[in-house]
């Protein structure tokens, strides 16, 4: 099992969700996050007071999938979240040791 975490542009969330369900991903977790990468930040001006906002709002999508599904999931996110402009985000993949469905006690791939 692998945990796939994708930091994406907030307005791309629905497209990413649709793309993931399209490749058979049956659940995901979403958080509103802030951060910066190559996009750095943006400048806001209020009556002449300039602020460099260095942490931009992003959405973090997390899914846990079978090893066999990982490449398809990554490809789906990468396509759906892509605009070609700086700030599209990143995808990280980490190994997951165990998963348990709380309701039934099922574990491993059966819990996904």
């Amino acid at each position, binding site marked *: 099992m692998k945990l796939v975490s994708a930091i994406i542009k907030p307005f791309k969330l629905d497209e990413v969700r649709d793309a993931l369900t399209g490749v058979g991903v049956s659940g995901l977790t979403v958080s509103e996050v802030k951060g910066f990468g190559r996009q750095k930040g943006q400048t*806001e*001006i*209020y*009556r*002449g*007071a300039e*602020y460099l*906002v260095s942490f931009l709002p992003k959405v973090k999508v997390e899914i846990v999938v079978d090893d066999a599904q990982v490449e398809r999931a990554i490809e789906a996110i990468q396509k759906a979240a892509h605009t070609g402009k700086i700030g599209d985000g990143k995808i990280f993949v980490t190994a997951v040791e165990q998963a348990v469905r709380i309701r039934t006690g099922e574990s491993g791939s059966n819990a996904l």
Partner: protein
Amino acid sequence: MLKAVARAGALMTLVGAGSTVARAADKPQIDTGDTAWLLVATALVLMMNIPGLSLFYAGMVRKKNVLATAVQAFAVAALVTVMWFMVGYSLAFTDGGALNGVIGSLSRAFGAGLQGSVHELAKTVPENVFLMYQATFAVITPAIIAGAFAERMKFSAMLWFMALWLLFVYVPVAHWVWGGGFLGTAGVLDFAGGLVVHLNAGIAGLVCCIVIGKRHGYGTEYMAPHNLVLTLVGTSLLWVGWFGFNAGSALSSGELAGNAMLNTHISAAVAALVWMAIEWVSRGKPSVLGILSGAVAGLGTITPAAGYVEPWAALLIGASAGAVCYWASVVLKTRLGYDDSLDVFGVHGVGGILGSILVGVFATRAINDVAKGQPIGLVDGNAGQILTQLYGVAVVGAFCAVATWVILKIVDAVVGLRVTRDEEVEGLDTALHGERVQ
């Protein structure tokens, strides 16, 4: 027209009544149209303060200070109303006898003698309505000041400051300009409060933010407005309420009130466009806060002139308001380095000064024949009125600056002006009021 018919009818009755003429002439002739308009205008001006000014300011502060900021205008409305009824109105708007040049008397303290009476400035309206109308001006003027020291003053100190400032600055200045005092007698013109309200609050705001000092983290931390939708709603309420402020200051319902309303609307609109255009060209984007600020600048600047100038002049006054107040709020403030949190001086103070001077240029007997046929402003051929207006600006500005400074020093010595650094960082909502927005 109807009013003229009614007056002619009243005159015929008087002539016919013979021996009762003297007594009938003493009895005030209440005009229901004038009275109805003043009743409505009073409600409009209170609406400018709560919720107008309250929201206007609340949207511009950080989220941790939104309640503490919004409640200031509300608390001031309650505090000033009680003080105005007790002594404020009387000291501002009655004849002070030998001292009338500087202050009125206590003859109307606690509402004494109001029943069956009219004030000489509004002879067709019951005096209790006039008292109420003026109360709303007394409420909003100190409430405007609160924007200058937003996000750092103690609530207790704010209440003490507002009470003292009302008694020792607003009341005398209102008397000098409107209540029969030396500035009005000298010919200084202020239709609805360019001097009494906006210059007065603006100068006081400037002194406050300098004496109290900058917010912790000013210039380095992120202090952007937390919700400009609140500010947009507040500004809109101010704009509509300003019709009561300026057109109500005609103290009658008719052509003069209509002229004041037209001028007010034109000036607000033009100033909003001018501020927007300057910002668009110089900074690349037309900001929401910029358009709103421009409208308020236009409204404040036309205030002293609304009932003295022709509508084409309102166009010029509004345009100059947009440009000059932009410069004061964006360029001057940054250059001088004071932390006038919500630009009370840049928008209200500078607008009040500008408008009060421009009255000397554009006031005309064609609109309001206050000099009984004599020329009024420069457009009538009387350049001297500009000097008279400058005299008013200098006197009110200097007195307000000194008196505000003294009041701040007294309040600082007694209760302390400023919250602790920890409280300021935590946010005034929880630190001062034990509440917060989610």
